[in-house]
């Protein structure tokens, strides 16, 4: 589904990703871990198409398409979703209007008609329940005055509404208490099928207690320096990153 090959990207002239390789197949959950500043969020941003980042080398294939050739909204239309680390507030635009616009734009991109109001409301209720998002938030402005936990749940709610092929969660667990963490993870688990995939960017092992990854990758200095299974996450939790960094430096 997603094949990243030798990806190099920079921001303001500073190279952050320095030749990154990663392959994600349908039905898989990949966790990306790594110390601060290793390039985790950059990877998420580059995949979603944020303009500030400039890709200087490498290619990314998304379901047979050159992902880097597509605009951010085309990527969304193709089924790529990014749950933001810092969800943006849009004053005066109700959450429900926002997601309705998004759903219909993605449908239009895929040649589908707008969702009938009745169908939309049904979908809305169903997905709200999934992330235990209060109905009251639907009429509030997008993310305005939401608590940290509400914002993150709102991201997962939007993901559920858009039902993407590939969901990228950028440190969705940061700032969440254990209950919110459970709800967010539960949402992801419910959405998981054999046809879609998730890339979960995280600092901590604890999210992976709830979202069980098929692969765990350690990102360091703009490259994936180690890949393992969920046991690797436990090992990282116990021993930190230093041993991997040392290992990596020896091989270079």
């Amino acid at each position, binding site marked *: 589904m997603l094949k990243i090959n030798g990806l190099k990207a920079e921001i303001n002239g500073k190279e952050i990703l320095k030749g990154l390789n990663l392959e994600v197949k349908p039905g898989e959950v990949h966790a990306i871990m790594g110390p601060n500043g290793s390039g985790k969020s950059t990877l998420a941003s580059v995949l*979603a*198409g*944020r*303009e*500030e980042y400039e890709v200087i080398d490498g290619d990314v294939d998304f379901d047979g398409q050159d992902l880097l050739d597509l*605009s*951010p*909204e085309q*990527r*969304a*239309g193709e089924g790529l*979703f*990014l749950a*933001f680390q810092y*969800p*943006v507030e*849009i*004053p*005066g*635009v109700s959450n429900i*209007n*926002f*997601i309705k*616009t*998004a759903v219909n*734009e*993605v449908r239009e*991109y895929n040649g589908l008609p707008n969702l009938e109001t009745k169908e939309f409301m049904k979908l809305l209720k169903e997905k709200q329940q999934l992330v235990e998002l209060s109905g009251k938030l639907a009429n509030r*402005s997008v993310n305005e005055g939401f608590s940290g936990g509400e914002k993150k749940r709102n991201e997962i709610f*939007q993901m559920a509404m*858009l039902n993407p092929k590939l969901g990228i969660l950028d440190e969705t667990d940061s700032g969440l208490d254990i209950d919110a963490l459970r709800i967010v993870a539960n949402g992801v688990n419910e959405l998981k099928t054999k046809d879609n995939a998730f890339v979960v960017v995280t600092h901590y092992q604890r999210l992976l207690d709830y979202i069980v990854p098929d692969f765990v990758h350690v990102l360091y200095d703009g490259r994936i320096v180690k890949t393992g299974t969920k046991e690797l996450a436990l090992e990282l939790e116990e021993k930190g990153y230093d041993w991997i960094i040392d290992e990596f430096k020896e091989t270079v």
Partner: protein
Amino acid sequence: MSMSDEDKIIEEATTGDYKYGFVTDIESDLAKVGLTEDTVRFISAKKDEPEWLLDWRLKAFRMWEKMEEPDWAHVSYPKPNYQDIIYYAAPKPKKEYESLDQVDPEILKTFEKLGVPINEQKALSGVAVDVVMDSVSVATTFKDKLGELGIIFCSFSEAVKEHPELVREYVGSVVPQADNFFSALNSAVFSDGSFCYIPKGVRCPMELSTYFRINEANTGQFERTLIIADEGAYVSYLEGCTAPQRDENQLHAAVVEIVAKKNAEVKYSTVQNWYPGDKKGRGGIYNFVTKRGICAGDNSKISWTQVETGSAVTWKYPSCILKGDNSVGEFFSVAVTNNMQQADTGTKMIHLGKNTKSTIVSKGISAGKSQNSYRGLVKIAKGADGARNFSQCDSLLIGAKCGAHTFPYIECQNKSAKVEHEATTSKIGEDQLFYCNQRGIKTDKAIGLIVNGFCKNVMDNLPMEFAIEARKLLEISLEGSVG
């Protein structure tokens, strides 16, 4: 040119010996180029007006002659040559096309985006269709219904003929002839406009819209509107149209006067979308309007809501004189400028009565190389004990080449008054746009969404149907403003 019925009536009425003692060729449909006392007499005669109205016009003209065009507004444009304008052309139908294929495709595109039904599209762009007849009958049905309640809603000229006592009592009572350069000009040469009277205790059961009169003669560049709500009456009045309006006349100087008596309420909503000129600012309309209402009686209320997206230059300050005790004035405004447009708009709230209250919410959106200014005056007079004002002026910038300016003036002569002013300026952030894009929302649509969110508490004041159209209009006006 074939003579319309209206022309014939005018001709019949004016071919007698002319009692005002000047000689002009009244066979002609056009006034001579330029503005002199004779022009004013010509217009008045063409319209078969009573002498008092001619005198009123002449008084305005004489004052106008001594006035100078104001230049304090934050706009710049080549001043029109007032002697190079034709001030009267007999009402004639707009240029007719045989089918929509002959209409500017750009306009048709906009109609489509606005969702204007095909028949209305034809009517608005001057294609000959039966629908015009339909809307005449619709308008007539409404007129009957309103008539039963004693509500008068007609053209200004008709009111001069049918209800001269009302017109004479109120015209110029809120905006005196010499109020400003443009109001004086309008008073001297106004062509036509709307008149509305709601009798005591009557609540007008429908939104009164000039739209119903769309098929009537072109009211021209100097429009005059007078709305009177008698004691305890209520009316919601809609002016304008979201469809783009083109006009050969570059200068528009309208006057609107509202009188609200004791316990009366008038809600006045405008959507203005005059042609703004091309991307370089050529050919757009100058819209210099004087709008003012007086809360004459106790507990009365006047509320202005405006959505301004058109015109090359806008100069407009819908105002309230709060004379009655406990009277309320409101001003809700959205002004959008794009490309080379310039807008200097705002309001004046003049507190005279005790415990008078005013609210000002102004949302300015600037894109392209446009300049958008809010200019407002809150004046609390000596006797206005317990007066209160709240003003909120927010500006939103799209891109780096536009400008937003705020000029709030406060004059307070009463210590018990409370005046609050809040102002913010923000930019549509890359973050907001990227967030929308990532959800599949295209940039133009995202801007529409964000801008409509920004304007929400103004748009909420528009009547439902108007609001839906106005929202679409905001999106269209800002299309391509982020490249």
